[in-house]
């Protein structure tokens, strides 16, 4: 058990370093959005979802409604459905309360660091997972606390472009993900829709933009698959006579 706990902590350690500045920034911005030091720390402890927290802070600052905050959080976290689906295969023998705890801390980082080990389905693998999860969680809350502390000690920090820190962080998160042609189209469609609908109340434009962008991506996938199938068919047709002539 001890080896598993140590292994989990070791696996998550590099990701903790990576997430530290992110959480620090979330903490600093949360003070800007009107949270107290206590609120900010409690918030990170309970919500534990970086990009959603960052986005929610932007929404809180622009006085979006609770409903929009909820829908947006839901949409941003939809990718975790994939993690949930992937992990469920390997932990189905565990009792429900352990599974619930594991799900609670299922972030991008925890998934990335543990899935390799969990997949092997060795006995006691939940210790590996839980150690990684707890390590990441504590690191997350602590970094947020420090960020909030700095944010509240220097209230004028807002004048030094901290609002823009959030935008910059988003750019850093999203650029490495936008690789394929399909993703580029989806991103552009969503951005243009978002700008055109930015006048809608409660930031509803963002929700519509995301849905439109995902739909555009889906259509792109379909057409790419058709083109690939067509190309495959064409090459098969072209290679046929050659086969015949050889015979």
């Amino acid at each position, binding site marked *: 058990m001890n080896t598993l706990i140590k292994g989990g902590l070791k696996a998550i350690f590099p990701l903790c370093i*990576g997430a530290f*500045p992110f959480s620090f*920034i979330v903490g600093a911005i949360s003070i*800007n959005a*009107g*949270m*107290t030091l206590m*609120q900010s720390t409690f*918030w990170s402890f*309970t*919500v534990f*979802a970086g*990009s*959603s927290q960052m*986005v*929610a802070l932007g929404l*809180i*600052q622009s006085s979006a409604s*609770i409903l929009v905050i909820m829908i947006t*959080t*839901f*949409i*941003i*976290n*939809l*990718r*975790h459905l*994939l*993690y*949930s*689906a992937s992990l*469920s295969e390997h932990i*189905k023998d565990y009792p429900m309360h352990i*599974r*619930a705890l594991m799900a*609670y801390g*299922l972030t991008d980082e925890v998934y990335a660091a543990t899935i390799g080990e969990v997949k092997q389905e060795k006995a006691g693998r939940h210790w590996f997972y839980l150690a990684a999860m707890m390590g990441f969680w504590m690191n997350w809350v602590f970094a947020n606390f420090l960020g909030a502390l700095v944010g509240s000690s220097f209230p004028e920090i807002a004048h030094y*472009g901290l*609002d*823009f*820190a959030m*935008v*910059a962080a*988003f*750019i*850093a*998160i999203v650029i490495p*993900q*936008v690789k394929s042609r399909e*993703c580029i189209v*989806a*991103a*552009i469609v*969503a951005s243009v829709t*978002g700008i055109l609908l*930015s*006048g809608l109340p409660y930031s509803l434009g963002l929700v519509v933009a*995301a849905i439109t*962008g995902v739909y555009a*991506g889906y259509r792109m996938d379909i057409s790419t698959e058709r083109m690939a199938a067509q190309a495959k068919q064409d090459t098969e047709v072209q290679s046929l006579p050659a086969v015949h002539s050889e015979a």
Partner: protein
Amino acid sequence: MEQVHSQLDMNNFLLITLVMVLATFIIRFSVICMAGSFDMPERLKKTLRFVPVTVLPAIIAVEILGSGSNMEFNLHNPKVLAAIVCTLVSLRFNLIWVVVSGIVSLLFFQHFLC
């Protein structure tokens, strides 16, 4: 943007927290609680990958350009220039450097353009 330190009232804060905890947990637990008793269609899995690459760019675009009648899309908007710097930096460096270069370049452009 200048409404710094308007306190969030406690009820509102707790409501936001509760709503976000639920929205996050429901998704993370959704399939795990059914554990293996059903398979997600391949098409849905594939389409879900578009979610982060649509939500974030839309937010970035609106944050940079402003909304409604306050929209400002030109090279005199320091945020547009700083965002270009961030994009270039993000091709090579990680999050913290993108944020630092973003803030520094924004201050620089604000100082020299405005």
